[in-house]
């Protein structure tokens, strides 16, 4: 990505509206699915949909797809940290 392009990237209105529609659709899916009993998978499905929604928000709304690539590195860093904290803490609670 050239520097000038990054600096002047303006997301068109239509992109935002499409993303918003997608978010609303995913919300209705997750509400509907929650009504169906899927046992242990209910939580996984709900979190999976939440992950897709947050990816949309971060990439488009928060513009990270078009910004400096170092921000992506930062984001991955904080996400990894969080994941590692969860993983290591659960080594305690899973094996009590």
């Amino acid at each position, binding site marked *: 990505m050239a520097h000038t392009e990054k600096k002047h990237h303006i997301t068109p209105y239509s992109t935002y509206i499409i993303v918003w529609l997608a978010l609303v659709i995913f919300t209705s899916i997750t509400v509907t699915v929650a009504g169906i009993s899927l046992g242990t998978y209910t939580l996984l499905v709900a979190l999976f949909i939440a992950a897709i929604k947050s990816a949309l928000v971060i990439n488009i709304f928060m513009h990270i797809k078009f910004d400096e690539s*170092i921000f992506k590195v930062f984001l991955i*860093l*904080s996400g990894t*940290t969080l994941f*590692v*904290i969860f993983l*290591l*803490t659960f*080594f*305690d*609670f*899973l*094996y*009590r």
Partner: protein
Amino acid sequence: MTNSSAVLNQKSFYEEGNTKAKSGLAAWIFSTDHKRIGLMYLSAIAIFFSVAAIIGIFMRLELISTGKDLMDAQTYNTLFTLHGVIMIFLFIIPGIPAVFGNFFLPLQLGARDVSFPRLNLFSFWIYITGAILVLLSLVLPGGPIDTGWTFYIPYSVRSGTNISLAIFAAFVLGFSSILTGINFITTVHRLRAPGMSWFKMPLFVWATYATAWIQIIATPVIAITIVLVIIERLFGVGIFDPSLGGDPILYQHLFWIYSHPAVYIMILPAMGVVSEIIPTFARRTIFGYKAIAISSLAIAFVGYLVWAHHMFTSGMSDTARWIFSLLTFLVALPSGVKVFNWVATMYKGSIDPKPPFLWVMNFIFLFSIGGLTGLVLGSLVTDVHLHDTYFVVAHFHYVMFGGTGTIFFAALYYWFPKIFGKMYNIKTANIGVALFFVAFNLLYFPKFILGYMGMPRRYYDFLPEFESLQFVSTVGSWLMLITLILIIWNLMHGILRGRKSESNPWGGVTLEWHTSSPPPLENFKVIPEVKHEPYDFSQLEDMKND
């Protein structure tokens, strides 16, 4: 590298401020100049260090012989809590980053200030607010806190003392730490002088950068934990309290998820200072520059993964215990990389044993003892025996005071002529270093033996068989007091009466030595262009000729 003669008759930052007020208190407390902010931190931190040190002396006095000598058990409980809280939250954590990071990060990068100067001033004021809250928690009705600096659940929910206020103070201080971290990371990314690529940055900058990352990634976890404890105390919301179903061990996890990386917030900048001082006084480029730079990041990363080694005896699962023990041993690797590279730098160098260098020698010796005994504690089998004994107390005083504390003095003695443009008495400084070494070992080494014999920490009384070693330790504390007075008096005398120092008395080559001492308001008349490796001493001749 053209400006050293040109700036000789330039005004220093003491004479020229960036506030409306030209002089007096307002010219300091409203100044966004990173150098003034650094010095304000220095004065605040010096006061808190003195207070906590005196508390420590009183604790040692109580322990001079068996039975009640000076105070009752409850007073002793509050004193060790205060000693811990003040030393950790008000001195060691902000110490090197807030004082020397603020003063020297922009100078070493060749920048005019940090990225967000106003935020920087704001961080300072948050720090002061937090400090005032800590002091308020001492005097307000309810009484000073008595939980130890770890605030373990369930006692911290039930103790009637001013816990809520004290931990809110820790929250406020954490906020200051986070903002400083954000500022430093952005500064390193955005304000490096032309030509200063990542691997041309001085190693103190690398260390401060890694520290800043820990500050912003770890501190939020303690912030939320503290908020949860406050909410639990104020509203009776069930979170950690076992009587409401909560899990106190989960609190310990969250507490140490921050507080262990915080140990690296304390030690990493110190290691950065060591990497500055050794090449300057060995007149030799640093050995393994990249290895040291990367090992800072590695320590920051691995240091994040080892927190539960504080909890081996807490009742967490065996699987977690051996995993965390294994990870703990991994931290020794990057630390070892640093120590061996420092020693290799000195090999065949032309060493000039000035006081800052002698402080570093002290550091390497004391920190090595502290680090190696850390392995003893990181090992499951031995930790079960030594947990919560004086062995732990000795270990962390060797690491924190012998490590970070020593380097705090090293940094003061190294950058003193740069900050104040004056020089202290070298001979007195040398005596101070030697006395410090004796006093330190007299004070803390007996604690290893006491701990091994089974003396538990945080007790105001002990069995008769411990008496002789406890007495030795107390004598050590008196010698330490005398030493500290000597060290600080020498510095104060240097500031007030010291002879004028030349601009670059040690022959340092990193960018802070390329400007006048003390530096002018915006550091450099012309932003220098970096052409050399950071520790390339061949440029010293050019710097003198300019």
